[in-house]
């Protein structure tokens, strides 16, 4: 027998992804491999099977098992004012640009349970811009969107959120923007009035409006380089002239084709602006 060209693991994963694509139409082959493998391994453990290929009959014949897998592919880990330095830079470097527009459209692509969108609404409110803003917050996970619409988050997360808010240059108390319940907080309906939550799949859906500002943070990391390039092009095409694009602190546009059509607004915080 000659040495196999790929490991059993690679081979079985390929078969599983092909089966899933044929049956359900999901193209997980373009997702980042290491994170995908974590999910596959977790579902092997949950189902008590030994080989990746054992998941093939399971996913093909048990739709609820596959639905659980799809749900698991959406990682909704987020916080208010995540990476406070980023929001600080938005306030200092980008808000002055936004102030020159009569109306401002903002898109959060991959908004998860909504904290990033509420953070933006608070920031824009403090800068006197909220009344002429429309914020679109999209995700492909309906359950996360339903959560986002409620604006309700666990009380125990508030300490971190308050700290982030302060580091992001907030001058009030974050609790001013929410009502306290027994073990949760609910952010003001006034903020939510300016946010439209909607389902949008970055892999299969098209261009989204003429946005002045797009945030797509910590979503691209789950895609392989090809898919990242495709999605970055979609984001780029959804920007208005001179529009602003923000990606996650440790993500890159450097390897993509839109790289040279953007200028750097803040290198460290990964904020870019469409060139003329």
């Amino acid at each position, binding site marked *: 027998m000659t040495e196999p060209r790929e*490991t059993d*693991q690679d081979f079985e994963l390929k078969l599983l992804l092909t089966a899933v694509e044929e049956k359900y139409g999901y193209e997980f082959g373009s997702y*980042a*491999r*290491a*994170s995908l*493998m*974590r999910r596959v*391994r977790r579902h092997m453990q949950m189902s008590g099977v030994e080989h990746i290929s054992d998941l093939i009959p399971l996913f093909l014949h048990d739709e609820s098992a596959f639905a659980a897998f799809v749900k698991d592919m959406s*990682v909704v*880990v987020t916080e208010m004012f*995540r*990476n406070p*330095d980023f929001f600080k830079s938005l306030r200092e470097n980008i808000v002055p640009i936004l102030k020159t527009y009569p109306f401002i459209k903002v898109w959060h692509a991959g908004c998860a349970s909504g904290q990033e969108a509420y953070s933006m609404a608070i920031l824009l409110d403090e800068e006197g811009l909220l009344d002429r803003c429309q914020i679109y917050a999209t995700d492909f996970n309906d359950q996360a969107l339903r959560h986002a619409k409620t604006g309700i988050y666990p009380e125990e997360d508030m300490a971190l959120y308050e700290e982030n808010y302060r580091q992001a240059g907030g001058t009030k108390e974050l609790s001013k923007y929410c009502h306290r319940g027994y073990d949760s907080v609910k952010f003001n309906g006034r903020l939510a009035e300016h946010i439209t939550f909607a389902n949008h799949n970055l892999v299969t859906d098209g261009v989204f409006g003429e946005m002045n500002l797009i945030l797509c943070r*910590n979503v*691209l*990391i*789950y895609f392989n*380089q090809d898919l*990242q390039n495709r999605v970055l092009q979609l984001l780029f095409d959804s920007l208005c002239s001179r529009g602003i694009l923000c990606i*996650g*602190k*440790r*993500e*890159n546009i450097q*390897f993509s084709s839109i790289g040279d059509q953007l200028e750097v607004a803040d290198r460290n915080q990964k904020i870019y602006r469409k060139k003329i």
Partner: protein
Amino acid sequence: MARSLVVIGASAGGLSALESLLNELGKNFSLPIVVTKHLASGDEEGLHKVLSKTSPMEVSIACDKQPMERNHVYLAPGGYHLQIEDKDTLSLSVDEQVCHSRPSVDVLFQSAADVFGKKLLGVVLTGANRDGAEGIKAIKQAGGVTVVQNPETSEVPIMPKSAISTGCVDYILDLNDIAICLKDLEFKLEK
């Protein structure tokens, strides 16, 4: 393409352990080195500053889909898991914490074992957590080599002890012997 790789996990006490290990390895150690040290979001800048100054190899904070180079050390940023995507590339995720940590050593080690199999050296240094134990198991199962800092000479022995308790550890060594061992294995692995 990197043919083989070193992955290192560290937690409490890890800064000085990493400083001296990288120093002992010297600038001629050629395998890429990928390090997960537990830290909070943003604290990677400080770690990077210190290690850049003392390490004879170049040190960077890892970015998503960053290509790995020889003679180079990559650090996990706080708030992200660092993973080995393929033989050339690193990747990040913001998946749930593992062992109360993100970055987690287990996540790095498991992904490295998937990609590098036998061509992998996993090292667990000082720390007050059991993160890394599952990862050591994964590396061993995939045929890689596992090295753990001697708990008796570790600043905090919990992490080395947890790794050793898996029964999957090849070498238990003092810090300066780890460098000698890695240099020795470098040649064997690259053959």
